[in-house]
């Protein structure tokens, strides 16, 4: 916490980087509540294909979203090596199924490059920028754009 606070005062921000398929993404660490191993989820009837189901998170029912499928890539086949990032999106909690958590990054705002001008509206809608870290490209995604409230309610 003191570490985070120090970085915040120096204008830096902390991000959690994770791998989905062969791409790397990151989200703001403040949105992440915990990271846990994969446990089988109970499927939900009539759920969108990327909602794998719900799991028990210490008494709360937590929906699990296959981030790979959500971002338009091929659906994941969950194994024990997969992890679930429990994140808070507005007032709700959601579990994101990713391949692995790779890093905790401390970056300054100016290190975040704007999203390249591409044709796909969908990628543009959730990408908030890209980072170049040690020759890797990490895409910063906005969880609230991935799970907009009104769509969640409609689902």
């Amino acid at each position, binding site marked *: 916490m003191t570490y985070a606070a120090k970085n915040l005062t120096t204008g830096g921000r902390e991000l959690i980087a994770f791998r989905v398929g062969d791409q790397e993404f990151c989200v703001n660490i403040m949105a992440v509540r915990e990271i846990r191993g994969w446990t089988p989820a109970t499927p939900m009837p*009539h759920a969108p294909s990327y909602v794998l189901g719900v799991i028990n998170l210490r008494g709360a029912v937590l929906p699990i979203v296959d981030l790979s499928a959500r971002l338009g890539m091929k659906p994941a086949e969950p194994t024990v090596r997969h992890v679930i990032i429990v994140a808070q999106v507005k007032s709700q909690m959601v579990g994101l199924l990713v391949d692995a958590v790779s890093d905790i990054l401390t970056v300054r705002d100016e290190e975040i490059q704007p999203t390249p001008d591409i044709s796909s509206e969908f990628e543009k809608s959730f990408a908030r920028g890209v980072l170049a870290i040690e020759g890797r490209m990490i895409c910063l995604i906005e969880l609230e754009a991935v799970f907009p409230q009104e769509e969640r309610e409609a689902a």
Partner: protein
Amino acid sequence: MDMNEIKEIFFQECEEQLAELESGLLKLNDGDRDPETVNAVFRAVHSIKGGAGAFGLDDLVSFAHVFETTLDCVRSNRLEPNQDVLKVMLKSADVLADLTNAARDGGSVDQARSRQLIKELEALANGELPRASAAEPAPKAEASVPAAVVSPPVNEEGFQPVAFSFEDFEADEPALIEGTCYEIVFRPKSELYAKGNDATLLLRDLSRLGEMSIHCDKDGLPPLDGMNPEEAYFSWKISLKTDKGEEAIRSVFEFAEWDCDLDIALAGGCAVDAGEELPMQPVPFDLSMLDEAPAGSADGEEQIATRDRDAAVSAAETASNVLQMAQSSNRAPAEAQRNAAAAAAAQQAASAATPTIRVDLDRVDRLINLVGELVINQAMLSQSVIENDTNGTSSINMGLEELQQLTREIQDSVMAIRAQPVKPVFQRMSRIVREIADMTGKSVRLVTEGENTEVDKTVIDKLAEPLTHMIRNAVDHGLETPEKRLAAGKSAEGTVRLTAKHRSGRIVIELADDGAGINREKVRQKAIDNDLIAADANLSDEEIDNLIFHAGFSTADKISDISGRGVGMDVVKRSIQALGGRINISSKPGQGSVFTMSLPLTLAVLDGMVVTVANQTLVVPLTAIVETLQPEASAIHSFGATQRLISIRNSFCPLVDVGRILNFRATQANPVEGVALLVESEGGGQRALMVDAIQGQRQVVIKSLEANYTHVPGIAAATILGDGRVALILDVDAIVAASRGQSLKPEMSLAAAG
């Protein structure tokens, strides 16, 4: 804390006071004449009035004031609280509740009704005691001195002192009109200042009442080095000439009366300077009197009389305290008695109200959630220990057993936090009975039993509506008119009995009336007329009784405001079922009907049947299931292209494949391989739900899906099974509705986006 929050607290307290008021009045109605009950009722109205005054809720204040005045007559035994009086009072309590609600939520109240009640209350206050309102006696001091000396036994009667004091004073009544002199001794306690009141302001308000002279008594002031800066040392002796009466004087001190010693006495002969002649030492008096005289009651008047004597004696015997002392000692027994009574009352009040705290419901729910999780965790832990432990006698096992007991106890205690007595709902019912009895011109007595039976708060909240319906029905349809009752050899007053009790882990609420019972002929005819049953149907008495739960059924000849629109018992049945409860009726012609509701103690847990559907574990609420059966191939009949029916005892019932409806599988399962659950749902239709297998029956803790996800059609909620996995609880009504052709699947904007 802003004003709205304070106001919210006030309204919360109002609710408590209103409940107190009503239960007190009902106690009086049952013949309780305990002065403490009367005092409790009075206090409730007084507190509401006080609070309302602080928020400028004038309607509330003015009504409460009239109510209070009348109650005061009862308190001082000037008005006998008989049935008629209490009827008015109970109605007034209802209006007071309405006014409070109107003040909180806006909206209007029936002005005509409250005005009418104000009139009735005033009539009660005046009617029985014509002199009461004008009674500001101006006694002849000489006359009362001997009376005081010789009449201690009268004083000792304690609570019935008025009769005697008035007799002597009547003659002097006219003196009042041209203004009366009062001797007021006002001695603030330090609490008065601590609460932000200011003696100066009070005295200024007092000066507006009339001509006033003030003498400040500084004798109590200690030398500077012994002085506590936060202590109150001064007292004031005030001579006031006013035509407003003692009531007005007391109202100046209304919000300070608990924090000061206030002594108001009539001064004989209006001698403003008589005060100066008195010894500077203030007239001795005791605090208990003040406690009992906040609004110039008979007690107060008696005190005036006593004080008058004191004043007169002091004036006559200037500077000598001897007689005064003697009088005090004369008064002593009566006061000692009264002190004792006050102490006893205080003790009683303390024992009645055990200390409580207000806690946010969310916090309790969070605790319940965590404890539920603890229980599951503990179960999982013991499971894995048992699996890994070969000899089974290790100390770990013993520890686990203790842990299990502890967690159970914790769970029970936590659940008990949410449990509340059903009393508030029952109290509301007594109001409804009164109103409907009034409307229908029937005389009804509501008897409640087991009001302290505890049940989860959510159940209580949802109980009020169906219960209201049923009470209305019981009074409107169940009970006969007084004439008919007398003709049938019953007492003119009908009785509705509302009982709550615990029975095998559920709460059973019984509503019994001693009316005519269900007219089965009429019900049957009506059912035939409404095409609910065939004209030649052969129904048992019980089946006929149960017809009244059908939608659109009413036997009332004329539609009234109260009931008869046919949206009655079916709504009741549905809301009871929604609570996971059952309702039964038994009726004896000429003797009345009994409705019995059995409800779960909490909505947080549910009795469910754990089933397997397409390799998924689902929970079906047990209350929905009528029976389970193993279908035979010969009982399954195809109907049209996709529908299948199952014949159960020669009637055909649509077969619903749960796995298919929930989209768990693409094709319909073979019914013979599964189990059929015969369910009854909204609207009374039966359906056979096909599941693959039944795992067992168990109590499950209900978890919200909406908290982190959204509502899922066909699924009521989720739960967590002993192995820590989430299982979905089936929404039987939605499944049945879907099987009727309504779409279960809503718009899927996310699916399109993904």
